[in-house]
């Protein structure tokens, strides 16, 4: 700062700040003697750089420079403090108006460039914000400085002519006075027709236009204006403006990168959550995920629903502690581990036990809570184990919300925890609610109070409708429980038990021997006749025979044949050999191997899953829409 003192001009008096965008504004243009220290130390608001007034004419240059530096120090610190775009620019405006200028007009490149890539798209500047000092009675007539209306008088979107003055200015990257050679057309291009109105630009050096220039890109522009009754800008002020613009550009770039990172994390997390829930028979599912309000707050919440053999379904909700990209990444890994463990058809306590072991291998300081439940629609039972997670709530058909008492063992990642599966009745029509702590806990509410509030909200939803749809229920719960601003992300998984009657099931243990396939065929025939599915006899018998033949070859203990009739006919053959068969085209002379090829041809879906106790090979066929006779849905007992 080597500039000479500003030419004399009228002092601007301290002005109160009624404009909403200046809510925290205190202090103002008072002279150093009147207001030597700007604001309290906690919330420093810069005084403007000193303008040479008549009463300061005799003073030394040095204090003025010191003041200027003080102003810049506070202003740039505050600009740098902003975490997002709006905050950064709000700080710029607060620093600039009224201390340094009477109005500020900010335009930003739209869209703001991310990273260092060059974009071929033409520059578009979008008006971001305007701040003005309230107008004094004797104010200048400039429409740019008028307090009202705030925005409507300035062009919203500007496409600078690639060969025009504005583009040139943007490329040059240096701030300029409005009266500098060739700048007036650039200002006119930016501010639109208004700028060319008579007296729009105050006379003399009362306009500075400063490009916001990031590492590689133009980020936008800042226009600073002083009224004609205020002292014009000096060459020192141009340097002040340059500093403000530089720090603002850095802040904008930082905010853009930060927002980009948050959106990457957000995308990462969403990718790791189920894109859709399965639609198994015997249960209905709906889910919600709400990220935390602060954009960069990535959560580690997850939920899942995994179909298991026997038409059972594993229902999972979990929460990795912390809010970071790491939480989301760990969540993704834990979810995959749970899926793998669920595939083995382990009981809930064992799933959590192995999850705990695996989680420790991911790192020593990853803690997560997890609740794992298995619903069996045939036995109408629910099996739950809990690793430090808030309790599940069972919403009964009458609206009563039962907090399920499952010992909440230590969280995943602690190690050496003894998890316990608790079994309970899962009445048809009841709805299981699994959620993360974000739903019931906040800075103001503990989990217990939150769960009570959840139960209360459930009563009101059940009052209105006897059985609200799950989508409605989810919306109701979030509406009742979730405030506008959340510290934490929220996952909610709801599962309504529909069950199905035992007479849609056939289940037999069969000793493996050469006659087993024939027996399985006969049992299948009998079951399909009972279910009026004669049209499916041939294909089903054939496939059952092939799969059972395969199972018998490897089994050392009795195999299990299970038939399930819902909207599909599902057949499962379980044996104690963990060797999972692979489909291959049978070669001439091959004894086996044709079986699965056949199944693949005939079945709608099929699969082979390794279990902890062996494997299950299953296949499904669509049941023809209109069977000749509607089979009885009631259990025969």
């Amino acid at each position: 700062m080597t500039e000479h003192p500003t030419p004399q001009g009228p002092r601007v008096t301290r002005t109160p700040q009624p404009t909403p965008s200046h809510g925290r504004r205190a202090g103002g243009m008072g002279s150093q003697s009147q207001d030597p220290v700007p604001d309290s130390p906690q919330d420093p608001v810069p005084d403007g750089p000193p303008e040479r007034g008549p009463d300061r004419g005799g003073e030394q240059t040095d204090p003025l420079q010191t003041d200027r530096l003080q102003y810049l120090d506070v202003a740039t610190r505050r600009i740098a403090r902003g975490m997002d775009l709006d905050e950064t620019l709000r700080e710029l405006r607060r620093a600039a108006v009224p201390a340094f200028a009477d109005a500020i007009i900010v335009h930003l490149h739209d869209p703001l460039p991310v990273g260092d890539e060059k974009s071929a798209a033409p520059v578009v500047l979008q008006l971001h914000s305007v701040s003005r000092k309230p107008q004094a009675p004797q104010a200048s007539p400039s429409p740019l400085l008028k307090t009202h209306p705030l925005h409507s008088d300035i062009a919203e979107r500007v496409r600078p002519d690639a060969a025009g003055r504005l583009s040139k200015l943007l490329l040059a990257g240096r701030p300029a006075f409005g009266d500098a050679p060739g700048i007036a057309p650039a200002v006119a291009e930016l501010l639109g027709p208004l700028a060319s109105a008579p007296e729009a630009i105050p006379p003399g050096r009362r306009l500075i236009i400063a490009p916001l220039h990031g590492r590689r890109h133009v980020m936008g522009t800042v226009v600073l204006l002083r009224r004609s009754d205020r002292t014009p800008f000096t060459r020192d002020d141009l340097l002040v403006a340059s500093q403000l613009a530089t720090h603002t550009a850095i802040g904008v770039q930082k905010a853009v990168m930060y927002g980009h990172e948050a959106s990457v994390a957000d995308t990462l997390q969403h990718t790791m959550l189920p894109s859709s829930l399965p639609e198994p028979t015997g249960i209905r599912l709906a889910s919600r995920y709400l990220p935390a309000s602060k954009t960069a707050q990535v959560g580690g919440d997850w939920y899942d629903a995994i179909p298991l053999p026997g038409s059972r379904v594993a229902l999972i909700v979990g929460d990795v502690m912390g809010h970071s990209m790491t939480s989301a990444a760990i969540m993704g890994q834990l979810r995959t581990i749970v899926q793998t463990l669920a595939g083995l058809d382990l009981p809930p306590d064992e799933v959590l036990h192995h999850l705990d072991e695996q989680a420790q291998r991911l790192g020593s300081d990853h803690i997560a809570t997890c609740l794992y439940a298995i619903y069996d629609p045939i036995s109408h039972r629910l099996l739950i184990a809990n690793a430090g997670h808030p309790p599940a709530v069972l919403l009964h058909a009458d609206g009563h919300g039962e907090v399920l008492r499952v010992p909440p063992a230590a969280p995943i990642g602690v190690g050496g925890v003894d998890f316990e599966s608790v079994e309970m009745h899962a009445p048809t029509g009841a709805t299981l609610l699994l959620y993360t702590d974000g739903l019931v806990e906040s800075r103001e509410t503990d989990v217990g109070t939150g769960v009570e509030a959840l139960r209360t909200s459930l009563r009101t939803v059940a009052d209105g409708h006897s059985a609200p749809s799950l989508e409605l229920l989810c919306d109701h719960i979030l509406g009742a429980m979730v405030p506008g601003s959340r510290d934490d992300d929220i996952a909610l998984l709801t599962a309504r038990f529909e069950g199905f009657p035992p007479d849609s099931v056939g289940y037999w243990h069969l000793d493996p021997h050469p006659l087993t396939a024939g027996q399985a065929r006969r049992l299948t025939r009998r079951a399909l006749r009972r279910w009026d599915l004669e049209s499916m006899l041939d294909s089903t018998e054939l496939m059952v025979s092939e799969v059972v033949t395969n199972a018998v070859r490897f089994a050392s203990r009795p195999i299990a044949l299970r038939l399930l009739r819902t909207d599909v006919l599902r057949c499962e053959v379980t044996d104690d050999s963990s060797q999972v068969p692979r489909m291959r085209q049978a070669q001439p002379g091959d004894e086996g191997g044709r079986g699965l090829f056949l199944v693949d041809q005939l079945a709608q879906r099929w699969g082979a899953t390794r279990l902890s106790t062996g494997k299950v090979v299953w296949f499904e066929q669509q049941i023809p829409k209109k069977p000749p006779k509607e089979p009885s849905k009631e259990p025969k007992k």
Partner: protein
Amino acid sequence: MSDEADYQSIRFDRSGQAEAFDAIGDRYDEAFPHKEGQLSAGEWLIDSLPAGSRVLDLGCGTGVPTTRQMTDAGFEVVGVDLSRRMVQLARGYVPAATFHQLDIADLRPGGPHDLGRFDAVAAFFSLLMLPRVEIPLALRTVRHLLVPGGLFVLSMVEADVDNYAIPFLGNTIRVSGYLLEDLHKVIEAGGFEIVKEAAYTYAPAIADVPPEEQVFLCCRRHD
């Protein structure tokens, strides 16, 4: 070949079976709460027998529902179970009946215990606790316990397994079973005429016991 000789040729292995039911106790009835099939087979006995008939409940468990149902119908009922705990429970639940902690093998012709002759024998889910090789012998014992023309109701789980160890209510038990056609043959070979049959898929009210195919047979001693 006499029954005695047959029984002597078999090494009985009841290890764990009674102990499992001692441990299970009342939980058995909690896991299998719906007994409509069993009750309706009992109804058949009640409809078919004159008042005051003697009925043996073989493998009576807690005495609920069959011993109680027979007692309530005015029959003279004797309950037998291998599990000490079950007999204890049954005595509490059905004080009007007489109970013995016995093995079915103890009741064989010429065996250590003679409970006399009965107008009917009920064996619900009890013969399945025997290895297959013993089941024909058990049927002969039942036949021996019945008066000529006496009635026999039984239930089994349809399966093709022999002395197969399965997890059951937190314990392990060994069970045997036949597929329906084979069961018919075994029962008929045992000297019974099958009068009535009912089959149900039954889903126990417990997650670790899979649904099962239950078969109820109403038979008459074939003379």
